[in-house]
């Protein structure tokens, strides 16, 4: 039997298809994870996966088939085409893009796949012992994962792209307990293909433990409206949740009333506000970075807000085709079991002027919030939770308080940003969830920012 190369098999399967557009994505991946709970290693494992999918477009609907058995490629193309043809929905147009034939190797710093599990374990062990060694810490967890994958993409327009990427993620958290009261603190960090940061987290581990203990004696802030100053990490989560998701065109492309609200040229904030998303910015090698998205469209920089005015949004080929705009290379799939959907990459508020002190100086009574637990959005409303909060009194950052949740309405809250410092920093921890695809590697960031009249509730 002659064994065909994957490329030959894919090209053979795409030949003579009875559909307007067909694409095939094949993914070969390996991952490793380690988890400490307290001082003990609780979980360690390795996984490998090989799978693929076919996405087919008839005139008025998508057929999608995912599978693990690659020997059935041709049959799976026929199945996806059949599914597509049964559908009689809204007609679909894909924005034109040039076919791409390319190979994109992984961005690698210190390659995590070259480091033994035993060495990884020894490093994590140190952090577990640091946190558990802090007086008052009841439990801690250290979670580490890395994954390398090779994705092969081809479509009936002649694109053939092979891309590799390596993702590294890590979380440290500590729980302190006193008289039945439990408080937690944690930090999430990640990188695109570089293990180096994992080696140097002693200070972070100590800090997480100390913070959890300190929270036991912290006061709760009373719910209400406050002037808040956010650190770059939490401001990054804020812009991701409060605005980023609304700029994903798949939310609005089939909803005319939302298109009216999100008309390009609309003012969203003061002239100081500039927001960007892009798989190639603000620097190379971030977790949301890539050369080509999962439809084979080059990653690029997209200005979303310029001087407070809406100037762009994030597209797949389908949403760009429907709205008559330019594709932006934001169609991403978390793995081969999912079709690509419009996602953010690296999303950030561009730097303004000055420092955090300048933002705090004229706040009489407010709250300074740092780090994050997470955030969610339902387009209009969003919430995001900060891990540490401090009272601001008479222009100075004062006592530590219990964690708070901030909540608001996107159309009003962005207008209420009245200060943006110059200190842009990117947050690479965690991941983004949408349409059941979670956690997708993204990054977000911002300088310190100040928001007036922000609704806040104590935890």
């Amino acid at each position: 039997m002659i064994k065909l190369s994957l490329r030959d098999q894919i090209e053979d399967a795409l030949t003579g298809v009875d559909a307007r557009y067909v694409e095939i994505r094949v993914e070969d991946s390996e991952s490793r994870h380690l988890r400490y709970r307290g001082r003990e290693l609780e979980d360690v494992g390795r996984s490998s996966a090989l799978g693929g999918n076919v996405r087919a477009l008839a005139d008025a609907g998508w057929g999608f088939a995912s599978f693990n058995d690659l020997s059935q490629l041709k049959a799976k193309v026929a199945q996806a085409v059949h599914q597509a043809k049964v559908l009689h929905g809204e007609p679909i147009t894909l924005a034109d893009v040039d076919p791409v034939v390319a190979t994109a190797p992984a961005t690698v710093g210190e390659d995590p796949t070259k480091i033994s599990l035993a060495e990884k374990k020894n490093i994590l062990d140190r952090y577990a012992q640091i946190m558990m060694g802090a007086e008052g810490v009841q439990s801690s967890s250290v979670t580490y994962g890395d994954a390398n994958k090779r994705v092969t993409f081809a479509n009936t327009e002649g694109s053939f792209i092979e891309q590799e990427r390596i993702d590294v993620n890590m979380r440290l958290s500590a729980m302190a307990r006193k008289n039945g009261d439990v408080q937690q603190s944690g930090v999430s960090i990640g990188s695109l293909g570089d293990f180096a940061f994992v080696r140097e987290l002693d200070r972070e581990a100590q800090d997480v433990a100390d913070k959890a203990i300190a929270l036991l004696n912290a006061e709760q802030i009373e719910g209400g409206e406050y002037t808040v100053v956010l650190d770059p990490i939490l401001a990054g989560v804020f812009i991701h949740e409060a605005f980023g998701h609304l700029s994903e065109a798949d939310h609005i492309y089939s909803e005319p009333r939302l298109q009216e609200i999100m008309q390009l040229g609309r003012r969203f904030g003061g002239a100081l506000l500039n927001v960007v998303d892009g798989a190639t910015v603000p620097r190379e090698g971030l977790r949301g970075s890539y050369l080509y998205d999962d439809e084979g469209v080059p990653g690029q920089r997209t200005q979303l807000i310029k001087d407070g005015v809406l100037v762009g949004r994030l597209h797949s080929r389908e949403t760009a085709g429907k709205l008559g705009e330019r594709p932006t290379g934001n169609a991403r799939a978390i793995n081969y079991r999912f079709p690509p959907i419009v996602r953010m990459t690296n999303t950030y508020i561009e730097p303004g002027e000055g420092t955090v002190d300048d933002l705090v100086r004229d706040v009489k009574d407010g709250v300074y919030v740092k780090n994050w637990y997470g955030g969610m959005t339902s387009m209009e409303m969003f919430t995001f939770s900060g891990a540490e909060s401090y009272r601001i009194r008479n222009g100075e950052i004062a006592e530590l308080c219990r964690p708070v949740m901030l909540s608001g309405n996107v159309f009003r809250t962005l207008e209420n940003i009245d200060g943006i410092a110059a200190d842009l920093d990117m947050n690479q921890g965690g991941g983004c969830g949408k349409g059941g695809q979670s956690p997708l590697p993204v990054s977000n960031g911002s300088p310190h920012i100040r928001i007036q009249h922000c609704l806040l509730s104590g935890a």
Partner: protein
Amino acid sequence: MARATAEEILDKARRVADQAEVFFVESTSTPVHFEANRVKAADSHETMGAAVRLIKSGRVGFSSTSKMDDPDALIEAALDTAQFGPEARFAFPGPAQFPDVPVYDPSVDGTTLEGMIALGQEVVDAVRSHSDQVTVEGSVSASSGTITLLNTNGGHFRYSRSGFGLGFEGTVIRGEDMLFVFDGKNSISPMTDVSGIVASIIRQLDWAKESATLQTKSMPVVFMPTAVPSVIIGPLLSALNGKSAYQGTSPLVGRLGERIVDERFSLTDDATLPRIPSSRMSDDEGVASRRLPLVERGVARNFIYDLQTAGLAGAESTGSGERSLGSLPSPSASVLLVDEGDATLDELIAGIDEGLVVERLLGAGHGNILGGDFNANVLLGFKIEKGQITGRVKDTMVTGNAYRALSDLIAIGSEGRWLGGGLYTPAIACANVAVAAKA
């Protein structure tokens, strides 16, 4: 190349490890998606995979794969992790008597794409005939699969399950005001009646027709069944997890047998209920399923354990080891039941002079869940004034603690409903919950 069977993988693992277990899954699902009131996409997913857990020199090793033609690589990866894996505090269970828990209806496999499209369109059309201002999206999905477990101590099970689910969301946009209403239903059998989902979506649309505002203060709050998971169940389960108990982080450590909340509240985990999507005859480690009281008339009764956690804690597995293909089992509830009380929803609302009905929350999964805290934006909620719903509230947050909320009960509703395939709960009305509203 040939696909390895579970037996072949176990035979290879047996030769290199002291004990071994193979977990094997095969499944298919065929969701149909609706967008902007019309059918948009039809998917089919075929999944298979195997996981090996082994014990060598007293340590646990683990690996998983979807590459079914290379069992040697799978076992080698598990051995690699076993060099320094966690110390095994259990032995794989031998042959067990499993309860009879039917969760497979073969008629799901006869579901047609055309039939699922028609059913989904029926929901869309019914909601749109009530109000053409609504944009409807959602999905109809059929699935089936087989789970097999084999271990070197003679433990073994194999069962099939089927699933059929509908979930639909309606969106209404007026200017910058957005309203999202949702309902869904899951079964092990194909569904033909969509009236319940349609009625629920229409009720939410009607209640949200007018706008209302609340003041920042503590007030009576009725948590609808859809809000109970994030406010009540999530915090309780994190505290009832055997891992939190063993680690000493659970606020319920040392309190089994004690009253922790109002005696009208009872919570049971029961994976043996027939024909419920999340039910099963065995947990994912080969320990027979059982009915497990968690909170009985306000008294904490049991923590949830898998084999390893039970070994660490000096307890017995409660048949609660659940896993995905790529991870070791961990303690998890299966089918949760909150006992119904005696007040209808109408009675609960009628008894409140000024308060809030919470239908859906946003962001409730963050913060100090283990301590019982909840803190969330009210994505969909309604004001109660003099025993009547007067309209939708926005820019509103609720903050509280599950234990305090359940200790300060007004009443538990009498009309329970299933949420997904694994939780049955009525509405729960609490007397004093902190509500923050934007002025």
